[in-house]
């Protein structure tokens, strides 16, 4: 009898310990949320001065906020840098919105905007931003309009481009590839010239590059038909791109490393990786993460499939969180950041950003403030302008890209143990359709 009660007692201790550990995980996040919400204490109550809170990770944001605060005594923005979206920023924001202590202004990239809209996390800005529409190209406006309403204001269009080590290519007489066939040939030449060098990297953690390349190839992972979604992650164009990169991976012509990881940076630094398939903003990333390589890099148009075209890789928008009571001040700030000369020049002059403004008329401003020294005085903005002009208009981001990307990411992780990119796309197609249906979203097959 006594033994039983001791045994039961021990089991109870076990249960309580287990449960406390389970719930303990949530507790840790609470703390983080509190830390994020601390500056959100209403400062607008007294007098005219309004205090806005803002979470972001885009390069040059601190400089933008400082410049805004200086020129707007009535609105003071409190900026908190958070991890980039895929590295945990989106989880943090979704968490904060759920808990009711989100900042007023959120940074959301185009692919994830539908996620936040369908979670009801952001405010409908349709009537408030109608005047800004004309400043942005139609292909960009399309990405911020979902279900007939406008939900965010775009900061940058993010046309893709090819970055390469000019010194390496010149030294080894390798021509800069113009098509994907040439890219593969160049990849072979790079490996031949230096067995420890590779032309680029496949990012198993970041399916958005694959998305951008599929966009360029004329594919569309998602589309809408009336009131229903059409999911086509495995359409012929998507397969073509998947198979092409799969072959590069299995032939060991590109590295397989997480994006922005320590490995990736280490190889760029040592010259083990001599190219990047990136976007306009990659120039800023390169500049700030590899300052020692100044003068050695150059930018070229993204290789294509024979006909000129391009896609977008990432690109950021700003939205107002659903519980914000300061949407007017928030929009003043957002508008200033995205559509004024002051806002764009402050960002670019920081020296860390190479954002290509979505507001077309501000491109010359950005070009003027971008220090081209890193790229050996190459004027990179006209190249981005040309690339932007080639961006196809057929692309739509799906309603739960974070989920779709998570599936792709998990599947890409299996590449080294027998998986394939096309296999990953097939799994993502199946899981995404299943997930959407489970949530009550109509899907047309």
């Amino acid at each position, binding site marked *: 009898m006594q033994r039983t009660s001791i045994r039961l007692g021990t089991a109870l201790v076990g249960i309580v310990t287990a449960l406390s550990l389970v*719930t303990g995980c949530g507790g840790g996040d609470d703390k983080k949320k509190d830390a994020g919400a601390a500056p959100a204490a209403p400062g607008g109550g007294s007098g005219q001065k309004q205090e806005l809170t803002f979470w972001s990770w885009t390069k040059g944001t601190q400089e933008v906020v400082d410049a805004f605060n200086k020129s707007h005594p009535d609105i003071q923005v409190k900026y908190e840098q958070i991890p980039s979206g895929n590295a945990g920023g989106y989880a943090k924001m979704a968490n904060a919105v759920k808990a009711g202590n989100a900042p007023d202004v959120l940074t959301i990239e185009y692919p994830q905007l539908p996620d936040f809209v369908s979670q009801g996390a952001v405010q409908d800005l349709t009537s408030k931003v109608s005047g800004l529409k004309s400043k942005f190209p139609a292909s960009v406006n399309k990405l911020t309009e979902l279900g007939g309403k406008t939900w965010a204001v775009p900061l940058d269009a993010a046309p893709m481009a090819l970055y390469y080590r000019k010194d390496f290519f010149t030294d080894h007489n390798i021509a800069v590839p113009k098509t994907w066939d040439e890219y593969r040939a160049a990849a072979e030449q790079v490996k031949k010239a230096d067995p420890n060098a590779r032309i680029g990297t496949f990012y198993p953690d970041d399916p958005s590059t694959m998305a951008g390349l599929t966009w360029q190839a004329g594919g569309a992972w998602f589309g809408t038909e009336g009131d229903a979604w059409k999911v086509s992650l495995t359409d012929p164009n998507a397969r073509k791109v998947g198979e092409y990169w799969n072959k590069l991976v299995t032939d060991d012509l590109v590295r397989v490393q997480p994006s922005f990881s320590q490995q990736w940076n280490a190889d760029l630094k040592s010259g083990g990786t001599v190219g990047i398939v990136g976007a306009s903003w990659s120039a800023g990333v390169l500049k700030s993460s590899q300052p020692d390589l100044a003068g050695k890099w150059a930018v070229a148009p993204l290789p294509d499939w024979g006909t000129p075209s391009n896609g977008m890789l990432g690109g950021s928008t700003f939205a107002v969180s659903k519980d914000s009571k300061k949407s007017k001040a928030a929009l003043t700030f957002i508008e200033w950041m995205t559509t004024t000369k002051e806002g764009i020049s402050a960002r670019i002059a920081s020296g860390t950003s190479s954002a290509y403004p979505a507001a077309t008329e501000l491109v010359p401003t950005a070009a003027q403030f971008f220090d081209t020294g890193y790229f050996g005085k190459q004027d990179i903005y006209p190249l981005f302008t040309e690339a932007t002009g080639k961006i196809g208009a057929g692309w739509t981001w799906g309603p739960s890209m974070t989920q779709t990307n998570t599936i792709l990411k998990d599947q890409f992780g299996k590449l080294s143990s027998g998986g394939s990119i096309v296999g990953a796309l097939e799994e993502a197609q199946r899981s995404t359709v299943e997930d959407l249906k489970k949530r009550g979203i*109509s899907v047309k097959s």
Partner: protein
Amino acid sequence: MNTSLRAGRRRRKTTAALFLTPFYALFIATMVVPIGYAIWLSLFTEKTSGLGFGGTRRVFSGFGNYADALGDDKFRDGFVAIGLYCLLYIPVMVGTALALALLLDSALARARRFFQLALFLPHAVPGIIAALIWVYLYTPGLSPVVELLESGGLHWDFLASDTALFSIVNIATWEWIGYNMIIFYAALQAIPREVVEAATVDGAGPVRIAVSVKIPMIRAAVAMTMLFTIIGSLQLFTEPSILSDANPAVGSSWTPNMYAYSAAFRANDFGLAAAASVLLAVFAAALSFGVTRLSSGRRTA
């Protein structure tokens, strides 16, 4: 007399209540309420319609989330991963900790204090920091360890898909060996010296004493450590999540805890996340009960 007795009893009751209140208040606020809320959350799901941009409704789904979690390969694979992890981790960690504790306890040990502290030190490093340090040590091109191995002609990729489990076990072992060693060492210190002396007089060498006298006498401590290690392993989260940034083979739902995290903060499915957490807790409870039964049963046998 009668009244004073009753008053005394009442006073005692009030005192007891006074002492117990803080415990129960905290217990309810930090245990019962969150667990109750998790169970409550797990019974609902969010539905939308059309393109999904018209907002969401919360609908009661009963045990739907539980069925979804149990029916999901990814959730079940998490338990398999934990099982493999335990198979590798527990023998290595408990074995090494026990060996070190016996060494410290043996007459041969010098500088006991120093080794106690030195071996315990890794446990004082927070799990996240430890994982970050190890990821750095695993990264080719950055890591002095990898460089050293390479210079010796050894090519070991810590971040490959088939070495992920080993890399995680290594971090956890590094973190927990010292801690468990201290527990074993304390238990060994509690063994009456006469017993050890008697064994010596009987002609047993140090190894024989360790295996036949000391280990059986601290069996309870070893069993308790195993129990806590298994429960701790079920909660595995920090090390694989940090490692998943560097090693894509460690997926978003590598362990059940990561599955719950991913469901909540990537898929925004809080119902599913809550259901997965509750299932994990129930599983941990059942396992603890089983292990305690098993070890107490062996004791009586």
